[in-house]
């Protein structure tokens, strides 16, 4: 049954309408597939760029400068308005929402006014005794809202301004009021007119310090509720303070009610210690600054002094304990300022920031911890007399010749600067500048410490110890597997070790934290003994093996040595661990941990860098092993055969021929392993104490960038400085691994090119192992 196909050419027309259509359709499909697949390929680059730019987008606001402009409501600029009330302004402030301002005048008026219009909402006239007048003003702190007026008769009045928010009909209504924390009656502070006054205290204990130029008196008040709680009794204890001939111009009292700071003429500052054993005494008298002191204020928390002079310099000071254990007022830092004299300085209510104005009418906003000038802007041509922050530091009131202007400030992240992140910072309460990470605390006037240094250090420390264990093991193992091992065994061993890479790191961390850490603490001498005797035992076994008669040696062919060593290693390790307590008794007095702490003076944590090194070494070994093995195995065989044929020993061939050829691959393997160790989260999170310390000590823990993100991300407020700094930490990690991986990949790409030139057969090997390489 045959058919003759050739006899009749079938009538085929390739240009029928339907064929054309289907060709067109096919071309279209092809084009679409090409572009889709092209997009798929390029989208890999897009993905990495997306991560990069998104992290950058979250981090970038940290480094923005502050902005200021006149307040706008519904795009309507709020115009300046005359200062409400009569008299000269002593104090200016605002409430939480910046809706209501308070202006205290030297007529004893407390004027609450609408901060947009200047309309007086409530006016309270202080009850000044007949014949007396207001001579001074003192603020306890912005956040306590307690202030005092000093009178010419030596008495003082203490007030607290308060606000109540209500929501009748869903609209917010804020009602201001004044309370008297120390009663309405005037308090006797001194016998003379109170030209200077300072107040501080909380709840039931208050202290007022007041007097004239060279004469100061202290009045300590303690409030006690009477038995039935309906009356408050006040006890006053008056005390003379030592005389100082420095023509005091300003006086401040720290919140601990121990230290009085007095500004004098020619830049002098005196420190009085009220709790000296023998009564109040001058503890320090120093020439703090050139020129005259014009502003003299305490920063939020009351522990730091801000001192401004008529040369435009602001300096920050705190009490630091010196070697003799004495508190010394010490200059911590200076802020770059103007050339013009400072007129007023006001502190933020919630952050360690402050603002100054000078005779040049320039407003500057600083942050003390970050040592940063967030804003420097000339506000107007007319001289500014006074400035005041709203509690959220989002609004600023200025007074110019009894005209108030409301400004809006955008200053979200003044507390971050390059120096705060990466340099030593002298924090309040510390004896010296330090690297510290401490992002949150229980109290409100806490100074956040955002130094990334301890975290970066911890990251590198963990990676270093992990690499210390993993690199030699992985590379040596890879050398043997690729070069000496018989192929049958190699095909089993290699996937077996690579299997470890599939193990979730959380399991390693869990075991390291809960099993390995206590195990190592108990068997520390044993572990160190093993580190020494295992290599010795391996070499000794090798030598003994070489001494055995050939008959026995030939039973096991070359390349199976690794299996012979397994029992050797196991037995040696068990032996090492079993003599642990013996070694401990003989060398370390029975307790190696105590020996380390007492004799070496190194502190010992149960979850330490050694545990992390071993656990993370586990995680890194398969990565390095796999890539190194591929690189060595890919070295063309004709090179090593040539070398062997010329009489080199296998070891000589390996070190002189094979390893140099494979070195770029080994380098890239180490780089990739390093990248993995740096970014590892769960192991370090679970197997260290997560204390951000900077110490290379192998027996102490650390906190890494990655673990820090994992610990703190859930509790950080979205959009806050803390949140963005965590993004910055992620960005730093990203950049580090990016550099390391890119370097490794570039090296590998050049290696691939070179070997392809060398030997086409190797490309096959490389192709086979491509999935491992990429």
């Amino acid at each position, binding site marked *: 049954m045959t058919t003759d196909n050739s006899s009749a050419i079938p009538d085929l027309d390739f240009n029928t309408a339907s064929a054309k259509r289907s060709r067109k359709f096919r071309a279209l499909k092809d084009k679409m597939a*090409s572009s889709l*697949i*092209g997009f*798929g*390929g*390029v989208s*890999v680059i897009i993905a*990495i760029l*997306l*991560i990069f730019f*998104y*992290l950058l987008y979250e981090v970038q606001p940290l480094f923005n400068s502050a902005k200021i402009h006149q307040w706008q409501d519904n795009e309507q600029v709020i115009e300046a308005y005359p200062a409400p009330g009569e008299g000269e302004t002593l104090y200016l402030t605002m409430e939480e929402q910046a809706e209501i301002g308070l202006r205290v005048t030297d007529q004893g008026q407390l004027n609450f006014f609408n901060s947009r219009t200047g309309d007086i909402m409530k006016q309270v006239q202080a009850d000044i005794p007949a014949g007396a007048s207001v001579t001074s003003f003192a603020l306890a702190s912005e956040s306590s809202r307690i202030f005092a007026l000093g009178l010419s008769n030596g008495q003082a009045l203490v007030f607290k301004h308060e606000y109540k928010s209500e929501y009748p009909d*869903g609209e917010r209504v804020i009602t201001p009021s004044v309370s008297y924390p120390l009663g309405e009656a005037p308090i006797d502070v001194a016998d003379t007119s109170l030209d200077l006054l300072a107040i501080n205290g909380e709840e039931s204990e208050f202290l007022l310090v007041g007097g004239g130029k060279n004469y100061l008196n202290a009045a300590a008040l303690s409030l006690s509720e009477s038995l039935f709680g309906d009356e408050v009794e006040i006890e006053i204890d008056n005390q003379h303070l030592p005389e100082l001939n420095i023509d005091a111009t300003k006086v401040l009292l720290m919140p601990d009610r121990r230290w009085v700071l007095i500004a004098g003429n020619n830049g002098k500052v005196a420190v009085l210690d009220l709790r000296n054993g023998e009564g109040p005494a001058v503890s320090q008298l120093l020439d703090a600054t050139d020129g005259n002191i014009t502003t003299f204020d305490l920063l939020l928390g009351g522990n730091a002094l801000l001192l401004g002079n008529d040369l435009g310099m602001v300096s920050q000071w705190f009490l630091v304990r010196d070697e003799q254990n004495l508190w010394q007022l010490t200059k911590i830092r200076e802020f770059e300022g103007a050339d013009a004299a400072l007129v007023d300085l006001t502190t933020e209510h919630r952050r360690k920031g402050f603002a100054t104005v000078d005779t040049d009418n320039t407003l500057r906003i600083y942050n003390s911890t970050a040592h940063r000038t967030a804003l420097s802007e000339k506000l107007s041509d007319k001289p500014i007399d006074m400035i005041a922050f709203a509690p959220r530091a989002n609004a600023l009131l200025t007074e110019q010749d009894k005209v108030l202007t409301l400004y809006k400030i955008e200053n979200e992240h003044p507390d971050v600067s390059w120096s705060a992140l990466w340099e030593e910072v002298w924090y309040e309460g510390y004896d010296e500048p330090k690297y510290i990470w401490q992002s949150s605390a229980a109290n409100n006037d806490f100074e956040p410490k955002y130094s990334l240094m301890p975290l970066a250090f911890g990251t590198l420390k963990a990676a270093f110890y992990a690499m210390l264990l993993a690199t030699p*093991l*992985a590379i*040596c193992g890879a*050398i*043997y597997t690729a070069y*000496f091992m018989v192929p049958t065994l190699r095909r089993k061993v290699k996937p*077996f*070790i690579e299997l*470890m890479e599939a193990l979730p790191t959380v399991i390693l961390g869990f*075991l390291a934290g809960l*099993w390995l850490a206590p195990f190592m603490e108990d068997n520390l001498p044993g572990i160190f003994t093993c580190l020494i005797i*295992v290599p010795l035992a*391996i*070499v000794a*076994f*090798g*030598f003994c093996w070489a*001494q055995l008669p*050939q008959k026995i040696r030939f039973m096991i062919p070359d390349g199976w*040595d*690794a299996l012979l*060593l397994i029992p050797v*290693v*196991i037995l040696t390790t068990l032996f090492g661990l079993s003599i642990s307590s013996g070694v401990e008794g003989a060398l370390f007095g029975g307790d190696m941990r105590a020996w380390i702490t007492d004799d070496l003076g190194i502190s010992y944590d149960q979850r330490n860098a050694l545990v992390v090194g071993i656990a993370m070494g*586990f995680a890194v070994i398969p990565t390095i092993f796999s890539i190194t093995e591929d690189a060595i195995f890919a070295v063309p065989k004709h090179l090593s055969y040539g070398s062997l044929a010329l009489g080199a*020993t*296998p*070891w000589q061939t*390996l070190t002189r021929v094979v390893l140099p050829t494979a070195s770029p691959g080994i380098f890239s393997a180490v780089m*990739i392993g390093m990248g*993995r160790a740096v*970014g*590892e989260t769960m192991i370090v999170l679970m197997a260290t104490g997560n204390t951000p310390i900077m110490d290379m000590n192998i027996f102490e823990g650390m906190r890494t960038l*990655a673990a820090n*993100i994992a610990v703190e*991300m859930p509790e950080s407020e979205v959009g806050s400085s803390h949140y963005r700094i*965590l*993004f910055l930490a992620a960005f730093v*990690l990203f950049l580090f*691994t*990016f550099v*390391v991986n890119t370097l*490794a*990949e*570039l090296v590998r*790409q050049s290696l691939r090119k070179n070997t392809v030139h060398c030997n086409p057969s190797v490309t096959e090997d490389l192709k086979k192992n491509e999935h491992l390489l*990429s």
Partner: protein
Amino acid sequence: MNISFREWTKSGSPWVWLNAGAVAISIIMVVGLLALIAVRGLSHFWPADIMQANSTVNGSTTQMIGEVVQSEDVPTIQLREAGNDLPGDEEFMVRSLIKIGNRDVNRADFTWSIDYYLSDREYPEMLFAAERREWGNFYGYLRALKENGEVVGSYDGYDKTPEYEALWNDFENRVERALDIQDDIYQIEKHRIGAINYELERLRLKGRALELDGVTDQSQYDVLEKRRNELNAEYEGLQQELLDLYTLFNRDSYVAEVANGQQVEVSLSKVVRIFRPNNMGFVEKVGHYFAKLWEFVSEDPREANTEGGIFPAIFGTVMMVILMSILVTPFGVVAAVYLREYAKQGFVTRLIRIAVNNLAGVPSIVYGVFGLGFFVYFLGATLMTCSSRKPSHLRHLVPRV
């Protein structure tokens, strides 16, 4: 053919051996790790024998019943410092952690005891353990079974007699019965009532939709109302059924003697499983082991995740992996196809290879931060504001700022 050490070192052999050692150590580490996980994890379900012993501390003797969980050597000095009056000059003493269970009686599940204090250790066959839904494990001797508060069977000895076996079999049957009822209750509570609630909610939303569309035709509302009444009636019926089941469920209870002779009554509705580990043969233990293992992978956790299974966690893991695979596989395959088949090998492909390697190398925590920030706060917030045409009845829920 003996070879001198010098020659041997010169040939580089020690280094080869060290390299071989590295492989050996790596293999041991992998095997050791897997073995450690397996032994530590899988041994957990093996039924431990229940020990009964007398503990004599400072002259007063108490009985102790429980499983020995862990033993360790502690320096005697340390124990003496902790206030223990210990004679002898042994340097170390064994201290054991004993799971005494019966949290309702003992207040604590575990107790530490120095082995020196323990005497008359024995493993009576008739001791039984009961896993419960509250108060943890129970250990004791079965004394009586009660039905509706009336004793239906009792036994008063410590020996294995046919009488006792009969009581035990009855006990097992009653536990089985209670578990069956529990299943029925679960079915009703979870599925049937759940279905009714779901439909009621749908009806409410339908009614709401009609109101929002301004439908005034009463008949449409009536249809919904009729269905709602039907469902409510059905719900009432189920409630009654449940009530009856609960009465049946709570019918039985057992009385058992715990350590120191105290008798405790426990409702069978609280019991998940009863067994007598000291009386079990190897095969029975294996059976128990696999039952526990199956429970571990297939059940919900009980008692604040300390008992029961991890099924929800397994479900979550698998779910996440499946979702991820569906979303990401096409992406990866297309990129690979592009690299191999479509792109001209050159600068762009090198760039893509670098990007791929970086995607693989970026620490997972960075992806976590990126995901949280980009998908949750950034895209999430943007999508929310885009689709903020909220129904008017929800508007009052939006806080006024």
